């Protein structure tokens, strides 16, 4: 039967990397059957749990992926943890090819003394709490009066925006209200953002800085900006970034009661100070060593692989997406923790071309049995896209006023709601 000979591909991870890959490979092999696995019952990965809750316009990319999951030869298999519920080898047996689109979920460590002190947090963990990620502890940590953010990329700016905003800044968002209330009850008095680079080369998008400047919150200062002459020459991004920093720290900006934000540049953190609880960050500056007082520190310096069966395969970036015959990787799992959502599209296209070329050359031979050959228990625990839409509907309908969605933080509850509704549909 010809239908037996279609390529059957397994994609691990349903974030942008996995979705873009599947979309791209289907353009070249429209007959292919694709299963996209996720360890959570919900799809979309970092779009759902990494993009800030008040950036719903960025999360709107899921409208594109929703359409893609509606295709009959695309299957979502949520609630399946590769390594726990099925091994990678078993998947490689069941499918013609397996594509790792697992991202990088662990906060990269700074590697300086004192990093394990109480009060030092990773940005990924904090972002997940704000996004109601199941499996993250549901309680927002008490950050105290003097918060230091290490890093100046978009993740750092997302966190800074959270620390600066008040309740009014979350209209039509899906923020965790528990986390928001915990912070609002005990907000920061001072926030220090430590950039390793100078302002022009900061890693944040100028639009992110302009957004901060447009908020009527926060009083910004920078002891390191005075030496920078804003210039319209050179890179447009750099010029826009410098203009945004200048606007933020302008003396004409209306003062507010929200935290005082100190933007530091050309600073290298060399140690966390404190005995049990963090008390400061020692930094190297062009003027010498300083210590910035801290009641808590959030590191936002990128991501790395969490330890798992797959981690060794994706620990180092590579030019090619091919790891072995029939095993590939895409997204951050391929190229490292750089670039926003759209960059995964170009990356996925490249890997899809490799897969399609290997199919055409007979390096990958179609004929594997696919999802139906996986164990009964695995297929039973798997959450389909249709089941996810039930959970999705539940989340949207149970949203509080001023919120677009209320995410559940208990994964078992997510699974039960996705499943229960299906049972009632059958009745």
């Amino acid at each position: 039967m010809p239908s037996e000979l279609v390529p059957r591909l397994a994609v691990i991870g349903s974030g942008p990397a996995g979705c873009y890959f599947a979309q791209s490979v289907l353009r070249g092999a429209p007959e292919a059957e694709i299963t996209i696995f996720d360890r959570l019952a919900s799809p979309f990965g970092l779009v759902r749990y990494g993009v800030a809750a008040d950036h719903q316009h960025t999360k709107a990319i899921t409208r594109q992926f929703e359409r893609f999951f509606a295709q009959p030869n695309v299957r979502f298999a949520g609630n399946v943890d590769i390594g726990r519920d099925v091994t990678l080898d078993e998947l490689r047996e069941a499918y013609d090819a397996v594509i790792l689109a697992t991202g990088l979920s662990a906060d990269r460590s700074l590697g300086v003394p004192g990093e394990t002190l109480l009060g030092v947090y990773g940005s990924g963990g904090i972002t997940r709490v704000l996004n109601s990620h199941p499996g993250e502890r549901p309680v927002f940590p008490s950050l105290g009066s003097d918060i230091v953010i290490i890093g100046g990329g978009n993740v750092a700016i997302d966190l800074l925006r959270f620390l600066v905003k008040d309740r009014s800044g979350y209209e039509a968002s899906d923020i965790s209200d528990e986390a928001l209330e915990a912070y609002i009850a005990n907000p920061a008095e001072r926030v220090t953002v430590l950039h390793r680079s100078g302002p022009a080369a900061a890693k944040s998008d100028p639009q992110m800085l302009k957004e901060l400047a447009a908020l009527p919150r926060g009083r910004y200062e920078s002891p390191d900006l005075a030496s920078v002459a804003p210039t319209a020459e050179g890179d447009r991004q750099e010029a826009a970034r410098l203009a945004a920093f200048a606007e933020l720290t302008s003396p004409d900006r209306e003062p507010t009661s929200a935290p005082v934000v100190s933007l530091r540049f050309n600073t290298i953190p060399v140690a966390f100070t404190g005995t049990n609880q963090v008390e400061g960050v020692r930094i190297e500056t062009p003027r010498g060593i300083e210590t910035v007082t801290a009641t808590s520190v959030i590191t936002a310096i990128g991501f790395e692989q969490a330890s798992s069966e797959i981690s060794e395969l994706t620990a180092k970036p590579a030019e090619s997406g091919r790891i072995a015959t029939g095993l590939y990787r895409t997204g951050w799992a391929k190229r490292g923790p750089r670039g926003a959502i759209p960059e995964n599209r170009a990356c996925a296209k490249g890997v899809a071309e490799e897969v399609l070329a290997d199919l055409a050359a007979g390096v990958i031979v179609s004929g594997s049995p696919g999802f139906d050959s996986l164990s009964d228990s695995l297929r039973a625990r798997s959450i389909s896209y249709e089941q996810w839409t039930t959970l999705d509907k539940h989340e949207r309908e149970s949203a509080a006023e001023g919120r677009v969605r209320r995410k559940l933080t208990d994964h078992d509850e997510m699974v039960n709601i996705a499943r229960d509704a299906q049972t009632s549909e059958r009745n």
Partner: protein
Amino acid sequence: MKITVLYGTESGNSELVAEDLGAKLRETHDDVEVFDLQDFDPADLTPNHFYVVVCSTHGEGDLPNTAIDFAEKFDVLQPDLTGLRYAIFGLGDSFYDTYSQGSEHLDRRFTAQGAERVGEYGRHDASSWDLPSDIALEWLPGAMEAAGLALAG
């Protein structure tokens, strides 16, 4: 008349819109092509075709990745587009002050070289959460009517 749908994309939304517009146009027209701008040479622009241009916005109101080379080649070539007619649909995000400016870079270039834009300037706003193709397919009939080209109902 031959219809060419051109798109420039960063996140893939314009590509889907272009494909959907292409499929819709094929219901009525025999000769419809869809090209990513990165695979299209500005020297091939001709008044014998009607163009539907779909383009998103990236960064500081800039062109998306797949339209950049096209624009650079266009500027070198400065093709005479007298008699060429086109409709344009821009994608963007009103969350930013650069909303929908990406497509305008193409619109300005086409107009400056003598081409004529017909119909409403179509726009999709990511902040609306509307499906881009829904908005584009609502926009298309008016644009085609303005172009004097029929479209199946």
